[in-house]
């Protein structure tokens, strides 16, 4: 009887030792096995934000792969749930991920989704990091577990800086009424207007399919020198196409995120030439540091294409989170709530520039350059410190 019990106990202990322990604490100073830590992520892999979600997913996976290749004694496992671009699904995803043992959650895309999802994570005392939500309201909540690496102010600085350099007499801003573009347009109007430049803002419903009546206002009423777009890819295509038909007297077309990318030029070559958008890398991609080179190479190997804006955002957030987990595990504070503090101590250069978190979890150092499509290449044209070439101005796609 006793022998049986001993055998059963031995088998049980043996199995327990052999199983990967999720988020198991490291004991400093002891010899360790490779431990597996789960990072959860909710991404809009389907639904209206799927384009962004899929790019984010790719960047995350490459970041985890590269981290695991070099990490000592720790292995990150990524568990991704499709939030279907819906806030309620994102909240459920966070709850499921945390109940499955995720030590931290990487957030999805869109402030309206990230807001409730990060609230849910905070209630579960779980660290939440995002690179896909720029609303100022998110950091105003003062959540101790919330972090993000990009923000509205960074995009605003890049675009307003370019306008300040060009010194036009007037600017028309076409802005989607979705939260992030509307917020950016508001900030841009304030900054550009403060510089003594006449600004007219035209908000449009995201469901709009014909921009001609709107562009006609720019042509006949505003007569602005620069057309600014605070919107998304489908809007950019519709706006530039309508402008090509109506030919307003603008000298330059400038947009926000996801515009100055090789993909946009490949897919819409007749619409993109000379258009300017926020960027952090020129194209052909020229990464200056070892981390960037490794990422670009691994990404090309995995997906057969060059790194781009969204995948790089998620690569950076995932890498920073993984490094903080490793540090917290090493210090033995991962399970006792030490991850937010470790993350808050982050201060490093990344592909997106310096990343540092303030008390609200925001990255006050986030700033982007402006890149101009130039016959299949992207030339960084502003700010002068980041420029790889002079801007073509006046210059239009038509």
């Amino acid at each position, binding site marked *: 009887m006793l022998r049986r019990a001993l055998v059963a106990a031995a088998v049980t202990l043996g199995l327990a030792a052999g199983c990967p322990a999720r988020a198991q604490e490291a004991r400093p100073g002891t010899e360790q096995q490779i431990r597996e830590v789960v990072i959860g992520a909710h991404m809009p892999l389907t639904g209206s934000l799927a384009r962004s979600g899929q790019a984010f997913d790719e960047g995350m996976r490459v970041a985890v792969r590269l981290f695991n290749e070099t990490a000592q004694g720790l292995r990150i496992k990524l568990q991704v749930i499709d939030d279907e671009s819906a806030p309620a699904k994102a909240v459920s995803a966070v709850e499921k991920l945390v109940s499955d043992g995720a030590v931290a959650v990487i957030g999805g895309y869109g402030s309206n989704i990230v807001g409730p999802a990060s609230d849910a994570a905070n209630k579960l005392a779980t660290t939440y990091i995002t690179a896909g939500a720029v609303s100022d309201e998110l950091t105003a909540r003062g959540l101790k577990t919330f972090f993000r690496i990009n923000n509205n102010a960074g995009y605003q600085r890049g675009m307003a800086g370019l306008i300040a350099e060009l010194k036009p007499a007037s600017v028309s801003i076409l802005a989607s009424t979705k939260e992030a573009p509307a917020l950016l347009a508001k900030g841009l109007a304030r900054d550009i207007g403060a510089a003594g430049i006449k600004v007219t803002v035209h908000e*449009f*419903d995201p469901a709009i399919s014909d921009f001609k009546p709107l562009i006609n206002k720019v042509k006949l009423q505003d007569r602005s020198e620069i057309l600014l777009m605070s919107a998304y890819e489908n809007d950019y295509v*519709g706006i530039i196409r309508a402008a090509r*038909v109506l030919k307003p007297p603008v000298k330059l077309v400038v947009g926000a995120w996801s515009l100055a990318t090789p993909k946009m030029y490949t*897919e*819409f070559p007749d619409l993109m030439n000379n258009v300017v958008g926020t960027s952090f890398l020129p194209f052909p991609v020229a990464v200056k540091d070892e981390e960037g080179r490794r990422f670009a190479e691994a990404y090309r190997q995995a997906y057969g294409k060059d790194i781009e804006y969204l995948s790089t955002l998620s690569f950076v957030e995932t890498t920073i989170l993984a490094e903080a987990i490793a540090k917290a595990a090493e210090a033995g504070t991962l399970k006792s709530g030490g991850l937010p503090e470790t993350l808050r101590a982050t201060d490093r250069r990344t592909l997106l520039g310096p990343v540092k978190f303030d008390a609200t979890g925001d990255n006050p150092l986030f700033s982007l350059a402006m890149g101009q499509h130039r016959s299949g290449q992207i030339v960084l044209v502003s700010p002068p410190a980041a420029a790889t070439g002079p801007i073509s101005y006046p210059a239009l796609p038509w």
Partner: protein
Amino acid sequence: MRDLILQALFSGLLIGGVYALVALGLALSFGAMRIINLAHGELVLIAAYAAYVVEARGGVSPYWAIPLALAIVSVVGAVLFLMIDRIREHRELNSLILTYGVGIVLTNAVLLAFASDVRTTTAPALQDAVTLGPVYAMAGEIVAFGLSLVLMVALWWWLKRSWYGRAVRAVSSNRAAATLMGINPLRTELVAFLVAGALASFAGVALYTMSVVQPALGHALTVKAFIVTVLAGVGSIPGVFLAALLLGVTEALTVTLASSALQELAGMVLFLLVLFLLPSGLFGARARRG
């Protein structure tokens, strides 16, 4: 201001033509079978992606995709019809749920096949500006409007003059009486569904040539088509065309005279006003009798 309003009216008419093109199929299945096909926008979407494939991979004009779109959408439409036909109870409500679910499946199938990137024609001829006095349009928009007009007339003729068209109307009016008159209701409804699919095919290809398409667009198209169908009232094909033009012009004028941020609201206000004042729609059965 005059030029602004003229352009708004012209743009409104052109976009209204596309709304009509998308709504004709939905109006047919609703009028003939009392089924609101909530996957209709996704059928249009499939046709639009067929146009993308033909243009991007084949390097030819997207209009060559019409036969391919007809074939694919007909097969999907027939399968959808057979699923609806299996519903035995509460057909109108259950078909609503069924087609909504099929719409989600189709959207995600498109997403899997083509990713979530935005697509549109790259043919310069379709994007060239057409100038008519003080107003401008894209060549693709003019073609889409013409196509919409032709299909509206063809559908009206088919329903009025052809044997199957009359059979569709008879089944829609009184299924039991039509059966007694020797009409096979199942076959007639299948034909109506296939014709609706054919209209969706043309709409999808036309949409691709003048607008931007992406997987999430299907649902928005269904909503727009539903608004047009209700505005028009059941049973009036020219009414669908006119209601679509009215919606297009209302939206474009709202953009010009107020703000684009209000354009969807203006459309919905128009929709609610018509529902409140004319519950049978602008050109529905009761209005026509009057």
